[in-house]
């Protein structure tokens, strides 16, 4: 989704009661801001099969120390299972997990020393806030005075030290989320695994916490592997995003890289909005093949984002252009949304309000775009990076 749209939504939810609850700024007193180094993680040929279903199928990637990696995918894509295998809570059918080069595949979860924030938090309902956060320290046999000091420091970091005696059930969703984070960080793990940690929160609070998590990660220098199905969250927070589908890693890269240069039509369609067309190289440049003539020799599949299309006024030219008739014009707030019927099929366009002007249904328009904004896929469905003729 575009930045414009996002801003608009934020204005809409600005009046929600959760808004008042917040507590700005992250770095409370008592926490050392000296960055610690996180650990690097390597996942090699990891698989998890349930009977004949392959929940995770031969996934490999590595995360550098201090990096923020997000596994993005729809439900059932295998992203959570991958995370739980790294945590040691799901046994892999095959493959290896290395933390700082050491194989931990056979290690029980309690020996892996990884912080995990679970979906719906999994806070212990029979303990108060303090005991929840103190739990990992108690399990490590740390002295009472040290526990007191470290829990206090961590609770201050998430600004909930005043709630230390509260029962978990007395806290709001956002507060529970922070306690879960504090509990996973209090024993200073080099790696933090987060499984859809914001799923249960409303949008306003989610954006707030996304920023806080990012700040904490940067100040602690900790490695984070984050699982979400929310594209925007993934793009906003991550150094790199791994897109998963049907148990396989589809593409992994920096957010802009996978958005601007998706390697497969699947990734292109999954991430953001997209128009797929067939184009053919000519002596002078590119031309769009009409729909139905798709199999004509030498044509390639191409993807262009709706926001990269422009209206051409008479006489104006672009590397590629296409005539069309407006089927409808919509204004969801932010940018205008147009659907045009063209010889190459329906094409979606995003225009700034001023550019769209007073366009109406049924009007004829000429759409143009630069060949730099177009991603080409070869016959085998792989992206071709060299676009200019």
């Amino acid at each position, binding site marked *: 989704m575009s930045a414009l749209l996002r801003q608009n939504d934020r204005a809409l939810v600005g009046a929600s009661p959760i808004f008042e609850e917040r507590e700005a700024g992250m770095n409370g007193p008592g926490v050392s801001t000296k960055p610690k180094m996180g650990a690097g993680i390597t996942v090699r040929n990891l698989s998890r099969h349930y009977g004949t279903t392959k929940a995770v199928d031969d996934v490999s990637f590595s995360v550098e120390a201090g990096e923020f990696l997000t596994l993005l995918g729809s439900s059932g894509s295998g992203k959570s299972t991958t995370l739980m295998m790294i945590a040691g809570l799901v046994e892999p059918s095959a493959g290896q997990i290395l933390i700082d080069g050491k194989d931990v595949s056979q290690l029980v979860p309690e020996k892996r020393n*990884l912080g*995990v924030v679970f979906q719906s938090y999994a*806070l*212990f*309902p029979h303990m108060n806030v303090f005991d929840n956060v103190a*739990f990992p320290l108690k399990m490590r046999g740390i002295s009472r005075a040290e526990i007191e000091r470290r829990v206090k420091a961590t609770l201050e970091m998430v600004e909930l030290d005043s709630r230390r005696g509260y029962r978990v059930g007395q806290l709001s969703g956002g507060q529970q989320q922070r306690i879960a984070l504090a509990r996973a960080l209090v024993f200073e793990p080099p790696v933090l695994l987060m499984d859809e940690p914001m799923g249960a929160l409303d949008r306003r609070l989610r954006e707030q916490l996304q920023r806080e998590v990012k700040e904490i990660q940067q100040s602690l220098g900790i490695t984070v592997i984050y699982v979400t199905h929310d594209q925007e969250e993934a793009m906003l927070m991550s150094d790199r995003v791994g897109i998963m589908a049907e148990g396989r890693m589809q593409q992994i890269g920096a957010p802009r890289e996978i958005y601007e240069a998706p390697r497969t039509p699947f990734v292109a369609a999954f991430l953001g909005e997209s128009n797929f067309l067939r184009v053919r190289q000519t002596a002078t440049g590119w031309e769009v093949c009409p729909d139905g003539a798709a199999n004509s020799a030498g044509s390639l599949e191409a993807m262009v984002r709706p926001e990269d299309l422009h209206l051409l006024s008479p006489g104006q030219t672009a590397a590629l252009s296409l005539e069309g008739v407006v089927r409808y014009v919509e204004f969801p707030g932010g940018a205008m949304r147009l659907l045009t019927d063209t010889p190459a099929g329906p094409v979606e366009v995003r225009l700034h309000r001023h550019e769209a002007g007073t366009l109406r249904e049924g009007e004829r328009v000429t759409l143009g775009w630069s060949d730099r904004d177009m991603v080409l896929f070869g016959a085998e469905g792989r992206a071709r990076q060299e676009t200019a003729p």
Partner: protein
Amino acid sequence: MKQARGLNFAITLSVIFAAVMMILPNAVIIPASFNGENYITFPPTSLSTRWYETFLTDPVWRGATWNSLVVAVLTAMVATVLGTLAALGLMRLSVRARSLLVSLFLLPTIVPTIISAVALYGLLAQMGGRGGLLGIIIGHTIITLPFVVVNVVAALQQMDVRMEHAARSLGASPLRAFWHVTLPVIWPGIAAGAVFAFLCSFSEIVMSLFLSGAGSMTLPVQMWSGIRFEINPTVAAASSVFVVLSCAIVALMGFLRRKQGKAMKS
């Protein structure tokens, strides 16, 4: 509208009828047990505590009550330990295997007690172990095990597995995760199973009737012969004890259910 009101009235009437039917036999027992005559009747014709005196002093009644307490406490303990272990094991199985095994555990509640009793009677007679308290405890454990399993499985299903996972990821061994996290969350379910097993065993008659011997009469067996063979009014005093016990246990179960609800809310 008139039709609706008539229907509503008929429904209320049926509910009242059912309620009276449910309450009546329990309600007459306590007043009737204070009757001073040599027979039991409601309303009592004269007031006396003589049947309670007999119940509390007669060695036969005292012995039967003691036997029943021993059996019920031991049954509750064995059934709770075995049932809780089994429930924990069931949760580790695949959904298919679990549902198959749960059916097996529920079998003793479906097979009429008279049949399990006769079958166990046959086995114990072959082994020469009939007539002792141990046989009764075994029989009662078979009957009460399903209630413990069902209660604990329900508690475990309500509990978020991620809670146990969280404990493990935070450094707890499986045993410590169970002790510090799972047990404190599911204990009301276990306790409910234990209390129900106790009540069930303490009141059980059919198994006991077949498996008890001269020295191992339980309270219900003594009451049974009191009703069937001698019309002994001490039965009324013993019955009152059961009515009071049931009320106490229902209150306890209500308390446990509330606790469970609270423990699950995070």
